């Protein structure tokens, strides 16, 4: 079985994000980058399938600037067989342009299963997984918290607002991964050492400017200074009164 994992490098969740001077991109100075946390579930799931099904290979691909290679290095350290950087300096604001660039770059290759995170924590669009599936004409199951893969089909539990939806689908298919699916492994020391020396294969990718662009980034609206109501349970009646009469939220 051939599994493809689409990953994205994103700023660490700890990072304070500020608009850059151009007001359409974010300031990257001092920002640490990580693999998008939801993509780590996708990587882990691929590796578990590989361990359960001898002969399975896992390839991790990312589309992004040169420093995205480090996300692939981390994926290699976790144990994927092959990595590829689709290098672009274009902004990736338009999900469809991103999905098209990925689909075009993958056109010559075939996979039984494509895994990716349910969303990336930077733009939070939840677009690329289902869009890649649409462009490749594949079934797509999103926000998956349990996955069972057989020879020719899969069973997936998808998290929805109302509960869970259980689907079966023929392979090849696209699955987007949600927290709860698994616990991503830490790379072994040996894996890390091997990945450190690795030359990350890359090819340049053409990304269309697309039909959606960021025209302005601003810091979130500041909140006006708050009020210390008091200490201990004796302050509770005053708090409830303020919420009722001043804030009018109770």
């Amino acid at each position: 079985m051939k599994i493809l994992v689409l990953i994205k490098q994103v700023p660490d969740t700890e990072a304070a994000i500020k608009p850059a001077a151009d007001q359409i991109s974010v300031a990257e100075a001092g920002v640490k980058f990580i693999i998008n946390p939801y993509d780590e579930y996708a990587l882990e799931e691929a590796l578990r399938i590989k361990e359960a099904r001898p002969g399975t290979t896992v390839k991790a691909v990312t589309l992004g600037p040169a420093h995205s290679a480090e996300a692939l290095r981390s994926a290699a350290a976790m144990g994927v067989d092959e990595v590829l950087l689709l290098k672009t300096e274009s902004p990736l604001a338009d999900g469809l342009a991103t999905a098209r660039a990925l689909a075009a770059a993958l056109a010559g290759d075939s996979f039984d299963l494509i895994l990716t995170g349910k969303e990336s924590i930077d733009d939070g669009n939840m677009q690329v997984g289902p869009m890649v599936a649409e462009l490749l004409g594949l079934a797509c199951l999103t926000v998956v918290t349990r996955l069972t893969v057989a020879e020719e089909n899969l069973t997936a539990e998808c998290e929805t607002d109302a509960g869970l939806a259980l689907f079966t689908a023929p392979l090849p298919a696209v699955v987007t991964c949600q927290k709860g699916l698994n616990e991503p492994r830490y790379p072994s020391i040996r894996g890390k050492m091997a990945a450190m020396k690795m030359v990350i294969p890359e090819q340049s990718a053409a990304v269309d400017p697309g039909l959606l662009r960021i025209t302005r980034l601003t810091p979130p609206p500041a909140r006006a200074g708050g009020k210390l109501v008091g200490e201990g349970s004796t302050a509770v009646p005053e708090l409830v009164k303020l919420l009722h009469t001043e804030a009018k939220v109770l």
Partner: protein
Amino acid sequence: MPMVLAVTEMQDGRLRKTSREVVSQARQIADAMGAEVTALMMTGPANAEEGASLGSCGASQVLLARATLLENYHGELYRQAVLAAIAQTDATVVLFPATSMGRDLAPRVAAARGAALASDCTGLTWQEGGLIAQKPLYAGKVMAELTLTGPLQMASLRPNLFPVRDLFPGQNAAIVPLELPALTAKAVLQEVRRRDASHLDVSDAEIILCGGRGMRGPDNFGLLEEIAALLGGAVAATRAVVDSGWRPHRDQVGQTGKVVSPNLYIMCGASGSIQHWAGMSGSRCIVAINKDPNAPIMQRADYRLIGDLFEVLPVLKEEIARLRG
């Protein structure tokens, strides 16, 4: 006349509230464009007369896609219904709710039609021939303005932010059947497991009580549940709590959980990490109850109470019960 298509969503045989938000916002956009609004209703064979009431929010007609296969949400099948509705109405703008349905459905439709899609928008206007969308990036650490172009433009709207407008009280919209193609799909829906219908999801709640590690253990969340029940609210949790297995992941608020913007968000024993703040800083009113006056949340919340949760929360419950009496 140009057409704005508002995709609505049913739950348990009724229109979700967010459906009316989407239709109301579609009306705003349509007014700026000089367009009309068609609402699309996708449902099983059951009675769908409720759709007519979307007229009061500004829909001039309701397209009804009714089929046994549409009883429950299925991405591939609903995609075909939306594509048919776009074709039948010549819509140039399509709006979705950014619910679990809309966030699965909209990208499929956008990719099928080669359209720009702005996801999970918190603001949306029409200016000079295109949609301008506002949305938080990095779960709210930065706000973005997005400009869409192209002959077909789409957006999904974050629930509970856009007002439901009763523009034409009592006015019913005409219900028109949608000509559906033969519905086919690769994936097969085997089973839908609903949570207890009385369970209010944090995304839908107007009032949220959030417990952090200061709650000390899963059993103590019962206190928050009791207060939430009095208020018709929901209980949320921080990542630390979810990772400890005290609460399910669906309750997690923050950068790797849900982003919420209720009227009232009460933080109980949570420090207010940058990741958590990103998920709830859009709340109208934030209250922090914490025994540590130096916790980050105690610098940022609108109302702060220093104290031991296990002394404060029982009194809070009493006071709220009295108020709601």
